[in-house]
């Protein structure tokens, strides 16, 4: 069962330049991004974006630098004004809000975590954590217990009286997350929140986020350029390229059925055994298989099944979800799923295209 749509983006366009409305007519008539830049000197930031972000889910927006993902997330709380389109939060059109309503939206509905932390350097960790509440007019005494609660929750007991520069990058971002949580907003925007952290700390933070999310069930919009990170976190994955949505849906679904050579290039060198889960490759059936080699959980990844099978390719497992069988998984199916879908173009060309996009 799908949750309700919390934030919905409809036909969103953003064009940077002197006359965005004029350029918009060209874009709607089918002019490409490069052509628009060359002929009219306008940059097409976002092009016809349609995304539904559901309540209690993590929507990950992934793309390389310049794909417009940071621009997109800033439209949700209108740090950037769109050229055309609609943004609805629980059915209310955000673009129709006046200054006061917008401020209320930012204060009480949406919190944000930033790539470069963006803490106030002259305030203590505690004051930073309570920033959202102090903006609403509460004093330190009012929000202290709330702020300390969330600081403890993100693992920063006893750091409340330090200043941000005394903390490491990972700890500063924990403050950033605690600050967003203290605002108690149902929607959390995370703009490349873990990109500035080193890999080990990043993994820690991802665990922390998943842990918090299983408890809090917020609507999280997460921006990243890292495919592994997006596959790990996403309930709903949106892949952006040059300002338009290439594909969106469940991450496992995208991994198994990429609809674009760009995405195929992207997913060609990830560890599929670790990312794919039993649920997405199994056969749906409630019949018990013959020669059942054991029970596995539908959320297990394929790597753990391979480890269990000890290399035997003829085993069949029963797939369970909450003590009920939901399907069967044979090792043959599993092995097939580990091979990435064949490239339409030759491998060497694909590799070239990828290195180009990375350097660009």
């Amino acid at each position: 069962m799908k949750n309700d749509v919390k934030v919905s983006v409809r036909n969103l366009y953003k064009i940077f330049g002197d006359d965005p409305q004029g350029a918009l007519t060209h874009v709607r008539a089918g002019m490409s991004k490069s052509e628009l830049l060359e002929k009219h000197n306008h940059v097409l930031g976002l092009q016809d974006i349609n995304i539904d972000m559901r309540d209690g889910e993590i929507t990950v927006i992934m793309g390389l630098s310049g794909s417009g993902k940071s621009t997109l997330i800033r439209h949700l709380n209108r740090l950037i004004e769109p050229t055309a389109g609609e943004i609805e939060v629980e059915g209310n059109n955000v673009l129709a809000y006046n200054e006061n309503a917008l401020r209320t939206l930012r204060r009480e509905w949406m919190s944000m975590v930033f790539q470069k932390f963006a803490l106030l350097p002259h305030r203590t960790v505690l004051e930073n954590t309570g920033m959202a509440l102090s903006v609403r007019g509460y004093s330190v005494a009012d929000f202290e217990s709330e702020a300390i609660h969330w600081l403890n929750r993100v693992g920063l007991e006893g750091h409340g009286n330090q200043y941000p520069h005394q903390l490491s990058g990972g700890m500063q971002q924990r403050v950033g997350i605690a600050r967003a949580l203290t605002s108690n907003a149902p929607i959390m925007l995370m703009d490349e929140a873990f990109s500035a952290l080193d890999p080990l700390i990043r993994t820690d933070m991802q665990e922390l986020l998943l842990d918090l999310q299983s408890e809090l069930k917020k609507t999280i919009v997460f921006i990243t350029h890292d495919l592994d990170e997006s596959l790990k976190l996403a309930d709903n994955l949106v892949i952006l390229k040059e300002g338009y949505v290439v594909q969106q849906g469940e991450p496992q679904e995208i991994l198994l059925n990429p609809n674009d050579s760009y995405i195929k290039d992207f997913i060609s060198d990830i560890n599929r055994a670790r990312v794919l889960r039993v649920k997405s490759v199994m056969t749906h059936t409630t019949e018990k298989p013959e020669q059942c080699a054991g029970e596995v959980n539908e959320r297990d990844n394929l790597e753990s099944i391979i480890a269990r099978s000890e290399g035997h390719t003829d085993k069949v497992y029963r797939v369970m979800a909450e003590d009920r069988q939901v399907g069967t998984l044979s090792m043959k199916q599993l092995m097939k799923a580990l091979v990435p879908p064949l490239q339409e173009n030759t491998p060497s060309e694909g590799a070239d295209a990828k290195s180009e996009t990375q350097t660009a």
Partner: protein
Amino acid sequence: MASYDFVFSALGLEKWCSAEQSSAPMSMADLLAKTKGTDPDAEISLWNTPFPSMDALNASCGAFPQSRDLTKGLEQGFLSIKDALSVVLDPITQPLSWFLDTALYGMLTAPWWIIIPLLLVVVQLVTKSFKLVAFVGVCLSLLAFIDYYEYAMQTLSIILVCAFLCVLIGVPIGIAMSRSNMMQRLSIPVLDMLQTLPPFVYLIPLIFLFSVTESKLYGIAIILYAIVPVIRLTNLGIRLVDKDVIEAADAFGMTDRQKLYRVQIPLALPNIMAGVNQTIMMSLAMVVIASLVSAPGLGVLVLRGIRNLELGVGLVAGLGIVILAVILDRVTKASLARINSAQKH
């Protein structure tokens, strides 16, 4: 026959020229030429042709204004609006006189054994450095020991009042500049002019506007001269505040006022304080020049040294100014360093 007769004849303006013969008194050059007996109308070679300046054109055409008419016109223009200007400016600037007179009176009537410890306490509060307090104590005692205490305190109180007013006026102007590019475009030429105009030039129109006996005369000159750095650096400091932090402030729904007081000013404070330091140093420079228009203090002694060729008095007073400058610079820099260390990134 002057060089540019042909211009006026070509334009058909001979009539206008001869109709209004210049009634201005004879210029020095004409007088010299006359006494030497050289004929001014002699043919001039191409090599010696003068630039078509106002005076050269006037030689050809009596009705054309001379360059001294320009300066004279400016002067008369100023004099004609002077009365109206003083009616407006006098009451506005009157508080400045009160501030300066009160500060001077207070500093000089209170006994030295109150003033010196009071200054040391202020230094301690601003810098939290006992070393600096000891240094300032030694310097002030030295000045007092050679009987320059009174002059030094006069200079100091003028500087403190003027620098305080500079900050009071300059910081809001700087903030306004940082918020509007239009305001910045309009202000920068004015600031450039204030900063490059030779300091003596400030004094001339002020002498016409205000009575020389009033202390606001030199007060205004000092403020105009010293206010520039605090405005510039406030503007710069606020514009340099980390864009990410500003974005975070917006994203959490801060109002403009909250953003200004909680984010922009605190983060711009190191730059603003650097501006305050510069402002204090520049008011010290101007307070010496302002002694020409009756500003009391060490500058008067310097002036006496020049006027009467009293070498010793001039040198000692000059050294006294150096000591004051060092004290003020060290104290403001130490407090700046304290602010900087409090908000490292």
